[in-house]
């Protein structure tokens, strides 16, 4: 027969084990859902003469309100499929729109003629890179770690993704703008 202090100790130990287990599960779940903070590079075709864009120009381009580059090449927008962290970051940082607003913007803009470019949607960052490699006027985005020599990274407001105060990041910035 167990005495009262022994039962109490066992109950405390069981409680502690349960708390530890719950904490472990939450940590791994956080690691799966929350991506590590990383810069998002704006990439264009290697032949594109543009090296730098202001954030304002970048918004104009991505909103489809500009049809051609300065060299005369037609602009083609490349987006990742909905749900991808990079797309979410772009909607947040460039478009300041939700997915629904984004779709409505392009449908309405193309109908009214205010938007000249309809974005192409690709499933993977590799697809984005290959698309941009094949289309001289294409512009898109990938994580900095997905960048390779087939595409060219452009500066935004004079800053490269490696720079500390580069604005386009996967996770929202905690500071006030």
């Amino acid at each position, binding site marked *: 027969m167990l005495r009262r202090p022994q039962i109490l100790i066992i109950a405390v130990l069981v409680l502690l084990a349960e708390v530890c287990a719950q904490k472990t599960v939450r940590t791994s779940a956080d690691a799966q859902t929350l991506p590590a903070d990383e810069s998002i590079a704006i990439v264009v075709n290697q032949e594109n003469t543009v090296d730098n864009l202001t954030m304002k120009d970048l918004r104009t381009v991505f909103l489809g309100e500009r049809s051609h580059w300065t060299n005369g090449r037609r602009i*083609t927008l490349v987006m990742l499929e909905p749900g991808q962290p990079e797309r979410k970051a772009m909607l947040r940082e460039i478009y300041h729109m939700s997915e629904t607003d984004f779709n409505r913007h392009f449908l309405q803009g193309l109908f009214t003629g205010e938007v000249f470019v*309809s974005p*192409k949607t690709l499933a993977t960052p590799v697809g984005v890179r290959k698309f941009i490699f*094949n289309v001289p006027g294409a512009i898109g985005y990938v994580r900095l770690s997905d960048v390779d020599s087939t595409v060219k990274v452009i500066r935004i407001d004079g800053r490269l993704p490696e720079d500390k105060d580069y604005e386009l990041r996967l996770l929202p910035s905690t500071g006030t703008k």
Partner: protein
Amino acid sequence: MSTAVQRTSRPKAGAHHSILDRFLFEVSRYSSTLLLLMVFTVETGVVIFVIRDLRAADSEVQRMYVGAVLGLRGIGGLQYDAQETRRATLYALTTNDSNLQVEYADQSREADRKVTDAIHEYLGRARNDRELEVGKRLQEDWIRYLKVRDEVLASILEGSIKEAVDYDLTGGVPSFDRVRQDLEEIKRLYDEQASRQLAVVDASSRRSAGRLVGVLCFTLLFASVSIWAIQRAKMLNALKLAKLQMDFVASVSHELRTPLAVISASAQNIADGVVEEKDQLAKYGAVIRNHTRQLTELVNQILLFASTREGRTHYVMRPMTVEELFESVLRNTREVVREAGFMVDVQAEPGLPQILGDVSALSQCLQNLVGNAVKYGGTHRRIAMRAFLHRSELPHTEEIRISVEDHGIGIDSTDLPHIFEPFYRSPSVAAKQIHGTGLGLPLAKSIAEAMGGKITVVSKIGVGSIFTLHLPTMKKGSWQDEPLGSDLLTRQ
């Protein structure tokens, strides 16, 4: 007989024949093995030649296979990859899915890389100006097509299908047609090259077959000539031997008939009572005795020669001094030398080592040499017999040399190589009616060789001859005196 006729009617051919016969005879002297060795050498050369020829033909075929067949296969692959480049581009036109379009663009680029590499490889392998020219044109046309293809792909991916189709129709189709024509021309060049190489291989094969037939004919001819030469050499040998034997029989008959006639006449005179006085009887008796001895020596010589030829001679070997040998020789030749009015100067180096041999055989050997010196000594009636020790720089080459020198008629240089041949008699000697059997020197030679030595000769016409018997000295420990009966060594 026929040979004589042939020589008379066709002197030049006869001269050639004579030279050939002399050559064959000389060769046959060193046995037919030499001829067979020559045949074997020539046959080996022929086989090597045939193998090299076959290998050359084989290499030709391999070169043709690598050059033409693999080339054609390569050009087939090139055509396929070029088509694949275009096909993948056109597939991209059939879909609106950007992901699929990118995949097709990727496939097109992969195929175009293969084509570019293959063209580069073709240019590297180009062996003539024509191939180089076509290769460079293909390269330029391909680059032109790729530029159009890139534009078409870009338009497809941008979503401008109409623009892409326009590009393809105005630029893509004509430039790809040019590429196709270039590829066809390259293929045609390969075909021509293959045809040319096939002709070369065919010619090479025919040449090889011709050579093989030629070589076989040559081999057959050579073998026939060789067999003929061997047979002829044997026949010449047999003829020569037969002639020598006939000469020998004639010579022996003559040698026998003369003393027999003298003996018969003397005996007849005695029997008829023509000789009555005691002095005359003694004279006739001496004549009969001398000629009987001459006959006995002749018969003994023939029998001894026959036994040495058949290997039936047993030599009783024992150590002897040179003085002992000289004594035996002088004793046995005294009568002949005295009767011929010759003098023999004997000179032996003091302290000569002993010789191991058969005394009577060596004595016979030297007797023959002395007998020859008497027979051919001419008017200068002195014979020198010397013995001395010869030391060479090489170890174990010490020998005793015993020379018999005369100052007579000498031996012609053309006769020298033959004087040790059985039954050989120099034509000049025969012409001078000097009697002999042609067995003395061969017998002396075979005895010298049986004793481990040899005989050499130096001679000059009209000056004289020196025959030297070379005998090895007895080595220490090579002969041991044993108590009873074993002091004789028998050599066969």
